[in-house]
């Protein structure tokens, strides 16, 4: 019996070690992701995608835990049943109780040790968590969850272990008690010995069956854990893929951002170029306008000079004509005051008067006639110094009162 208990302990420990190793591997796989590369993404968007994944994982984990808890509860119910039986036996046997208490104390000690162990493990996982702090938050949380689950599993396994040990101890105690009973009450229980044996055999058989069932359960659990690990690995890979995708996306974004930046710079450069060109064009235009204005002014000045010369020539021309016509005008004597006559005179180059027409008569025949004569007598009219001031038509206003 002792050997079997030991073996059981060894196998349980081995299992525990394997499970731990698995978690370590998972952690290492998680740690493989370089934090700086994740950091490079910078953007929170990809993390949100992981959050969705995390929910799934969490749900899964919770589901598993739920199942575990159910199982545990079932197990605990059975243990309680067994304990009640044990108590019954204890009631019967006072002495055995003490040993049981001793065993229980030992179990307690064992439990404390396991708790310490758990704590230690927990510290380890914390350390690991610290190590992973640089990692992205989602990954860390995932890892923590994994660690938590691992701790839970560990605790559960330990509970199982303890329970089994307890069972072992109890069974041992029962055995011892029965042996003692057999020894002590050999005589008086001789008659019921067969009965006892049979009952014990049945008990043993039942225990064996129980053990088989437990082993089965453990195997199933191991498988489940393996599946979970695989699932985790898959999720990790998925996460990695997501991360890579994120990284790719980030890079894409970065590239795009760079492209956009490049474009923006190009646009800015273009805009500056345009502005510069516009400025140049404006300056050119202003220069052009200034030049035109200067030219216009020069032209005007030239024109004014020319015009002033021309005006002078014209004034001279007018003076010459007027003088000659006035010399030739004999204003009729005795004509009333206020007479005015407008005569349109046509001349040809050379000054010869070729036509006269009284445009506005003075109303006095003699006056009009004198005007006509004065103009005709003045033919050929004086020539201008500047031929451009020559006027083919001259309108004379004869106004002696003016």
């Amino acid at each position, binding site marked *: 019996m002792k050997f079997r208990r030991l073996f059981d302990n060894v196998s349980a420990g081995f299992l525990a070690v394997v499970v731990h190793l698995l978690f370590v591997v998972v952690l290492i796989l998680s740690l493989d992701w370089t934090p700086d590369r994740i950091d490079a993404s910078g953007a929170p968007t990809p993390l949100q995608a992981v959050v969705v994944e995390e929910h799934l994982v969490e749900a899964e984990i919770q589901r598993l835990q739920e199942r575990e808890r159910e199982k545990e509860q079932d197990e605990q119910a059975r243990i309680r049943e067994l304990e009640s039986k044990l108590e019954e036996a204890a009631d019967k046997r006072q002495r055995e109780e003490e040993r049981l208490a001793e065993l229980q104390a030992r179990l307690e000690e064992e439990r404390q040790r396991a708790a310490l162990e758990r704590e230690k493990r927990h510290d380890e996982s914390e350390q690991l968590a610290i190590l992973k702090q640089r990692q992205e938050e989602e990954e860390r949380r995932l890892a923590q969850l994994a660690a938590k689950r691992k701790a839970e599993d560990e605790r559960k396994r330990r509970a199982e272990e303890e329970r089994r040990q307890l069972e072992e101890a109890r069974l041992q105690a029962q055995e011892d008690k029965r042996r003692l009973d057999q020894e002590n009450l050999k005589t008086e229980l001789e008659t019921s010995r067969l009965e006892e044996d049979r009952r014990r055999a049945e008990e043993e058989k039942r225990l064996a069956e129980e053990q088989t069932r437990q082993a089965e359960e453990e195997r199933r659990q191991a498988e489940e854990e393996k599946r979970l690990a695989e699932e985790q690995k898959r999720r990790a890979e998925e996460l990695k893929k997501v991360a890579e995708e994120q990284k790719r996306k980030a890079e894409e974004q970065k590239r795009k951002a760079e492209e956009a930046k490049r474009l923006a710079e190009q646009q800015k450069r273009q805009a500056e170029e345009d502005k510069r060109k516009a400025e140049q064009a404006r300056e050119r235009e202003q220069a052009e306008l200034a030049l035109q204005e200067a030219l216009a002014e020069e032209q005007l000045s030239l*024109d004014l000079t020319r015009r002033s010369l021309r005006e002078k020539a014209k004034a001279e021309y007018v003076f010459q004509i*007027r003088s000659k016509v006035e010399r030739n005008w004999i*204003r009729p004597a*005795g004509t009333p005051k206020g007479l005015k006559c407008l005569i349109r005179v046509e001349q040809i180059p050379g000054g010869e008067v070729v036509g006269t027409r009284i445009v506005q008569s003075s109303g006095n*025949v003699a006056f009009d006639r004198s005007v006509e*004569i004065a103009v005709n007598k003045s033919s050929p009219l004086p020539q201008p110094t500047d031929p451009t001031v020559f006027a083919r038509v001259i309108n004379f206003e004869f106004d002696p009162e*003016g």
Partner: protein
Amino acid sequence: MIARTFVYLTLLVWGSAAVAQGELNIRITQGLEGAQPIAIVPFGQGAEPPPSDIARIVASDLASSGLFTPIPASDLPGSPHVAEDIDFNDWRLLGTANLVIGQVESPSAGRYAVEFRLFDVFKASQTLGYRFEGGGGELRSIAHRISDLLFEHLTGLRGAFNTRIAYVTETPGADGRPRYSLNVADSDGANWKPVLDSRQPIISPAWSPDARQLAYVSLENRRSQIYVQDLASGERRRVATFPGLNGAPAWSPDGNQLAMTLSKDGNPEIYALHLATNRLRRLTQSVSIDTEPAWSPDGQSLVFTSDRSGKPQIYQMPAAGGRATRLTFEGDYNARASYSPDGKRLALVHADRGAFRIATLDLDGNTLLVLSDGQLDESPSFAPNGSMILYATSDSEGASLAAVSADGRFKQRLATRQGRVREPAWSPFRP
């Protein structure tokens, strides 16, 4: 900047527009006021010279108006008588615009055909041309008619050359006593003939509006009496023989009344006598002398001389009589007023620094213009076209007729019958 450019452009456009227009406007304000030169070529004539030199009479007429200066025949570049003979360039060089040519033919003995043409030298075209026929005695009249036509064509004014004048001459008689004659002559003083001779003074002849009759004052009966005489028939009638003074007859424009001065009611007053009815109306009521009435051309008013202010001055009153308005204020003596044909002026005798001179009073501006320069000028009357004023002037050599252009620029003496010439009157236009 745009605005300035716009201004430049406007200036340029304006400047070029002025060039493109090609018209100059020149104002003539100075001109020698004077007579227009006119070339009157001596008329061509046949073998028998006519009794009158038409060209000379015409030149004299035009010159007397003061508006024309006939170019002396010797200065003329040629003597064409027909249009074909005119070289207009020569006449242009002379600088005269008006060229008159003509000729006198004698189709039969004592009969003459006169034609004349007026050319515009610068236009080289005839502007006027007429033909007349008449006996030798009518040639002067024909000449005056030509003068009238030329004058009217060149001045727009009706010519008054073919009108007559009446004047009185005083000549010493064989018995040493003076003889008085009322004479009628052409406007240039020529062709005169007496219509009345008398041993007593004849004064104040006045032409009827139809120029057929003369009213005058004769003292032939040793007292002043007013007669109206028909010139064609020589018949006359006495129209005013009122007690006292009968003087200064003046025809109303319609010829129905004579305004006159009568002293029958005491001192000389103005009366109007209706010739057909002999009805007399007194027009002035004053204690002073009112005399020398004259009708306005429209017959609405009368001017007269009155000394009611102490000195003789001209007054105006309605033709029906009534309140008189003094017109002259310049000088101590203004008398013998008569209206110009247009009714805008008066011709009157004005005492100017001791000399009696002919003056005009502008009724619009009330300005007095002295025209004559004699010492004792009297009896002014307008030519019927208003261009001249006829008057009598006295100097050391005697008294004679003179005419002055209405602006006073041109004066001339008129040839008259021998003797002391007084009381001239220019006839109206002949109907």
